[in-house]
């Protein structure tokens, strides 16, 4: 059990890196990491020893993130977040603003639909295999590939400062 705990703790920096890229905001990202680790502790006993701890934790984080996206507001938010306008989260229906240069990677990422952003980050930042991404997000491999392709192209256009067609249809 001690070994499991050590493994879980060892995943913290990577969870933080991913959450930061996913959410953009440091405090909100650390909130997500904290919730993930708390849930991870609670369920550590149910974790399969032969499983991949990292994929398991990222899966927990994914589920929590999806829950957050479904809820209009998180139950507990830091006060400084309340005063600030909500950062562009997942906004598939918001078209790219003309003329806006989006050369900052972190900013451009936030303009991707969340499900594309997740896949792209797990592949490009976390360097997971496609099968690992599929297992982590509980989606078919084909969906991983299509989201990856769309996310990369959208990000490329954003970084070029080009108008991006609004992703009106959510991929699968």
């Amino acid at each position, binding site marked *: 059990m001690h070994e499991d*705990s050590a493994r879980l*703790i060892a995943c*913290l*920096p*990577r969870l*933080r*890196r991913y959450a*930061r*890229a996913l959410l953009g905001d440091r*405090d909100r990202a*650390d*909130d997500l*990491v*904290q*919730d993930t*680790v*708390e849930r991870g*502790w*609670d369920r550590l006993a149910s974790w399969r020893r032969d499983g991949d701890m990292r994929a398991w934790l990222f899966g927990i984080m994914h589920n929590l993130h999806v829950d957050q996206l479904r809820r209009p507001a998180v*139950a*507990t*938010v*830091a*006060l*400084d977040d*309340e*005063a600030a306008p909500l950062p562009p989260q997942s906004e598939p229906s918001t078209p790219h603003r003309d003329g806006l240069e989006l050369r900052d*990677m*972190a900013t451009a*990422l936030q303009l991707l639909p969340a499900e594309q952003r997740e896949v*792209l*980050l797990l*592949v*490009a*930042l976390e360097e997971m*295999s*496609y099968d690992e991404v599929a297992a982590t997000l509980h989606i078919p491999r*084909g969906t991983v*590939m299509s989201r*990856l*392709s769309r996310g*990369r*192209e959208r*990000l*490329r256009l954003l*970084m070029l400062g080009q108008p991006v067609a609004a992703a009106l249809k959510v991929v699968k």
Partner: protein
Amino acid sequence: MNPVTPPPVTEAELQAWVDGALAAERQADVAAYLAARPGEAQRLQAYRQQAVALRARFNPVLDEALPARLDAVTRPGWRLWRRRGGNGQPARYAAMLALTLSGLAAGWLLHGQAERAGWAKGALSGVTASAADAASDSAADGVAGMAPAAESDPAGLAHRAAVAYAVYSPEVRHPVEVGADQQEHLVAWLSKRLGAPLRPPQLQALGYELIGGRLLPGQSGPVAQFMYHDASGQRLTLYVSTEQRHKLDSGFRYAQEGQVNVFYWIDGKFGYALSAAIGKPALGKIADAVYAQLEPAS
């Protein structure tokens, strides 16, 4: 089987090429495909550069020191804290800050320094400024129009605690209602008013001594505020509410109001908020200590 007519290159294969995950037997086909299509090659190179840029942008996070609240969840004791209340375990005496007060010496009620009043003025103006921005549930609003749902919002707890800190910590002559020299009375009184056994934690090991406590109006009833100070006169307060209707447990949360940093957490019906105008890491360390003293004595 027949290598003469290779299957067409798919988008998925191009993605795999970007990630270095393309099957070896398809490398030549994709290379030929890209050689004939400079635009496509350029697109895929851009994808590779994305990965490089992403790692350059976010890898530094790997080396950042963990914030106190995340550091706290890696402690062994943290699990005990979280586990309680999960599956019908009897609620431990959450607010029974398990320690005796006997170690506390009497009569350390120092009278504040003049400069403290100076910064506190700034701190308070910070609080009121952000209170104006907040949608509801500030202590100031609370007087005029109660926000009934607010108590379910733990952030409201942090906000009220920060305001209470900013109001009372600069007090020179009356920082508390009952001083630590009357510990028994203080404990009995606040416990009775809040309807729960309540004791202030000991923070001497961290250089903070109890000044005393006071009773404050919360959102729907009384709350307690314990005040401490260190040798330099720096004050911090622990705000304890028993009004948490949702009885959720939370880990450490952090909020900042003006110059006041707040660590707060919910444990059953109890809400705690530790406030001070000191740095987040230092305050986090103290929050850890308070946290630790909430551990059941068992």
